[in-house]
């Protein structure tokens, strides 16, 4: 067989082995589940990215420039943190599975919740101020 037994780590380059911090390969179904969860976070990040750009690009008639910028930058920064954080989440889960330790908490989840709430709060304040 061309590729070495992945359980021994022989098929992996030294760099990958160092990034994964050794351990033993977990059940491949868990590795695939981790990958899908990572992709779900990436799509969340892409949705925030598209939302941020859409606010800036399509809302010129509705919002003033300051509000538009604020909402757009908040959404894009959230996309940045969720997108970058999703990789480290994936990596930390992979490492935990390889060492059979408890899975780390998803710290990007509260960030997403707080960020979403913050954007909503800015919108509520804007609507109230404009109505007054």
């Amino acid at each position: 067989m061309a590729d070495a037994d992945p359980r021994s780590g022989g098929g992996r380059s030294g760099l990958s082995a160092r990034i994964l911090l050794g351990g033993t390969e977990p059940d491949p179904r868990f590795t695939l589940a981790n990958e899908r969860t990572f992709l779900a976070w990436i799509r969340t990040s892409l949705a925030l990215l598209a939302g941020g750009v859409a606010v800036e690009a399509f809302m010129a008639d509705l919002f003033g420039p300051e509000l538009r910028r604020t909402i757009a930058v908040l959404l894009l920064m959230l996309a940045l943190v969720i997108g970058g954080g999703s990789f480290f989440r994936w990596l930390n889960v992979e490492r935990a599975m390889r060492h059979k330790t408890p899975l780390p908490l998803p710290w990007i989840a509260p960030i997403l919740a707080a960020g979403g709430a913050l954007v909503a709060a800015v919108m509520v304040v804007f609507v109230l101020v404009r109505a007054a």
Partner: protein
Amino acid sequence: MPTQGNTPTHGDAGLQPERTDLAWGRTTLSLVVAAAIFLRWMPHHGWFAGTLVAAAVLTALAINLSRRRRLHSAIRGIQQNAMVPDIASTAAVAASVVVLAVLGIYTVLFLPLT
């Protein structure tokens, strides 16, 4: 190694390889949607927005071109009951999204609407 035609088969009733392949497919669709929205910036920001469109589309294309390899590696992983996690793919996609977000923030804050 069992195969049907050119495709290796596996005995996972949870259909993990197929679901993971579809998750990558949905991600390419999200990237194309993001690229379509970046298009709206092109009349205002020209080639700079074009770079964002190209980056998103190229990432989607790269994922699509490597889907078959990733699917087969997942099926082999199920067959052998061990697989090497695909660090290169996850790191590349996350890096691409981070770059798109940074360029997006730069566009909003520093490029005036023309």
